[in-house]
């Protein structure tokens, strides 16, 4: 008996260690559970989404809408929709998804950051036949979305279902006509500063908000390019270098003249600025369209009435430009039943006229298909027309290049270094360029 005890003890410990170290397989074994043959068998679709777009969202309205939509869909169709979320580190989640796809273990449908959709083309299934049924065509979409959705063979390899856009918010009672150029900003800013306001704020910390809201609009307006046609970084060369340097020099000036407080170098996301806006001392700031409803919530209806939106100021002689982001659904499943069921669900919930309108209302997103704005369901805000104009005329998506995440990270470091006055614009750009090129 004693021997048995000893043996059991050791055996258990060894088993434990082995279980931890090497046991492969396990429960994840069969992902091809749906036997495509059966006609009336229920179809299982698994969809993996951004956490804020899934049942894990922190916003109860989102969760309620999704739950409701899933149950309605499952009642009508013989289907099982499993909507889960990937990790909150989005860039990592995106990278993992490519890895999974290359090993053929991607989920049936995944939500992908729209601008990098082209990197997934090889693993995606075209959606054209299913979208026709809903009268959805490429021409419904804004130009930047069309560009990423259309694969090299002309087929639709993903459907963008939300978008967002960056603008300048300004206080109408303080700013009679919004500044169009950088020198207008500096000039007006000095006056506002004397009156005790924080004239001009923008995200300048280490976060994607800095790249898309602060850098890219001002950089693109001068015709600058981050990468060439092959996706190789070129922002540190020739004309692009000059354009980027101009942006950094302008930001440097905003801090040096005191129209921008240094602390913006801790704000990596547009929404980080909300706390500043709440103090009532901000006159102008660069931000995303979704902040309109956030500010309304923070300040209340009356204060919110004072705010207006305008294009992001550009360099003298350059053009208005801005960044549009957004998310797309992409199909990895090869099974036709799954494809059809999945698109039916996506159309009902996110992509069809009604679905996109309701989803945009709930999440505060902008519809990416033009017809949706005309539907009765879509309730825009008071800035919707300006946002629409930005989307159709000024907006571009970020490059899909694999080098982009690194470029963006290095440019954030550059901006945050310049704004916190730890580097000169020249030095910050040189460092960013050599860090990117070293790879």
């Amino acid at each position: 008996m004693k021997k048995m005890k000893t043996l059991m003890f050791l055996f258990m410990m060894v088993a434990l260690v082995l279980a931890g170290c090497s046991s492969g397989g396990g429960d994840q074994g069969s992902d091809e559970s749906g036997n495509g043959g059966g006609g009336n068998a229920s179809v299982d679709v698994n969809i993996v989404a951004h956490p804020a777009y899934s049942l894990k969202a922190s916003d109860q309205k989102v969760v309620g809408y999704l739950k409701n939509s899933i149950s309605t869909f499952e009642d009508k169709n013989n289907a099982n929709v499993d909507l889960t979320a990937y990790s909150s580190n989005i860039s990592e989640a995106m990278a993992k998804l490519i890895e999974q796809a290359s090993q053929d273990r991607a989920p049936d449908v995944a939500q992908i950051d729209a601008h990098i959709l082209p990197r997934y083309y090889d693993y995606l299934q075209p959606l054209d036949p299913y979208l026709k049924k809903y009268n959805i065509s490429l021409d419904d979409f804004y130009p930047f979305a069309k560009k990423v959705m259309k694969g090299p063979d002309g087929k639709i390899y993903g459907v963008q279902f939300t978008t967002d856009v960056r603008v300048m918010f300004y206080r109408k009672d303080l700013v009679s006509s919004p500044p169009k150029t950088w020198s207008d900003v500096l000039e007006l800013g000095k006056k506002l500063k004397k009156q005790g306001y924080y004239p001009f704020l923008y995200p300048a910390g280490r976060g994607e908000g800095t790249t898309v809201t602060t850098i890219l609009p001002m950089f693109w307006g001068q015709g600058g390019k981050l990468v060439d046609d092959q996706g190789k970084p070129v922002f540190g060369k020739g004309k692009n270098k000059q354009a980027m340097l101009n942006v950094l020099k302008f930001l440097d000036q905003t801090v040096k003249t005191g129209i921008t407080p240094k602390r913006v170098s801790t704000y990596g996301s547009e929404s980080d600025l909300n706390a500043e806006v709440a103090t009532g001392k901000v006159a102008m700031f660069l931000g995303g369209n979704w902040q309109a409803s956030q500010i309304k919530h923070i300040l209340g209806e009356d204060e919110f009435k004072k705010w207006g939106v305008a294009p992001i100021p550009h360099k003298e002689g350059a053009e208005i430009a801005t960044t549009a982001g957004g998310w797309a659904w992409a199909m990895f499943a090869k099974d036709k039943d799954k494809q059809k069921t999945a698109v039916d669900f996506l159309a009902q919930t996110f992509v069809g006229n009604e679905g996109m309108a309701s989803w945009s209302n709930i999440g505060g997103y902008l519809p990416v298909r033009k017809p949706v704005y005309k539907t009765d369901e879509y309730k825009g805000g008071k800035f919707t027309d300006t946002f629409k104009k930005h989307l159709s005329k000024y907006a571009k998506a970020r490059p899909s290049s694999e080098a982009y995440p690194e470029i963006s990270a290095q440019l954030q470091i550059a901006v945050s270094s310049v704004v916190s006055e730890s580097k000169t614009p020249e030095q910050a750009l040189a460092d960013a360029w050599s860090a990117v090129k070293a790879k």
Partner: protein
Amino acid sequence: MTDARVDEVKTSSKAQKRSFIQVLGNTPIPWILPLALILICIFLYPIIEIVRLSFTNASLVGDDYSYTLSSYTSLFTSPGFIKMLWVTGFFVGFSVLFQMAFGFVIALMIDQGTKRNLVGTVVTRTAVLSAWAIPGVIIGIIWSLLYSETESGILNYFLSLAGVTNPVAFLSDPINALISVTVANVWRGTAFSMIFVYAGLQTFPNDVIEAAKIDGAGAFQRLFKVIIPILKPIILVNLIVITVETFNTFDMVMALTGGGPGRSTEVIALSIYNQIFNNFHLGEGAAAAVLLLVINIALTVVYFRFLEKGSKEGRA
């Protein structure tokens, strides 16, 4: 386990009839095998693997790579490398210095207070210890709320009450940010040093201090001539443990500044994480990890030298 059974074993062991299991049980193998297996799988294998990866240009995404030294060359020549070492050095150096100093002073104060039957020692001790039990990321979040630079920021409000007119850029000025991060880390780590020193003080032969008092030694003399020399071994062990711990930490920094502004608070462990999981440069991140590993091992060797020396002195 019945008595009869025990008796049986007694007789059989007297008769020196040892079964295989018993023989095995008397060798160290079954006793340390589980430990060895788990440490080999979860420490040794990854260490070998990270060294191997550091000589490749592997990416976190995708399986293709080739062997090269470029990870190391690009690590050592990258513009931020020297600065990262400075940042890490500052963070570790000052964190350790102040954690030790505060831990020592607090432990001494609590020990003396207990001897003087003061109330409040328990509350103080618990307050310090609580900080130790909070996960680093939550500490980072809580301190980022304190350091808020807007007009609703609490620390700046206190400073303005104290007559500081310009709000302090706690996190947006590169130097301040590094100091702020270090302060938060001292807040977090002081408890550990306090426990170490406090434990040392509990073993203190009380008559030593009394004898010193009778000899007419002043408080400072007692501190430097009696208390510190006796606590020296404990202080040194503590020093090495928290130095390593601070080198390895990044959760608090990540939640507090994310390494910014610029890269002014990007300590080595955070830089490894960023390289690999945000930029996907597995090879280069691995090279930085190897550098951290070398620092870890070097400190261990110092520690071990010291332990050996200590035990020899103890025996002598």
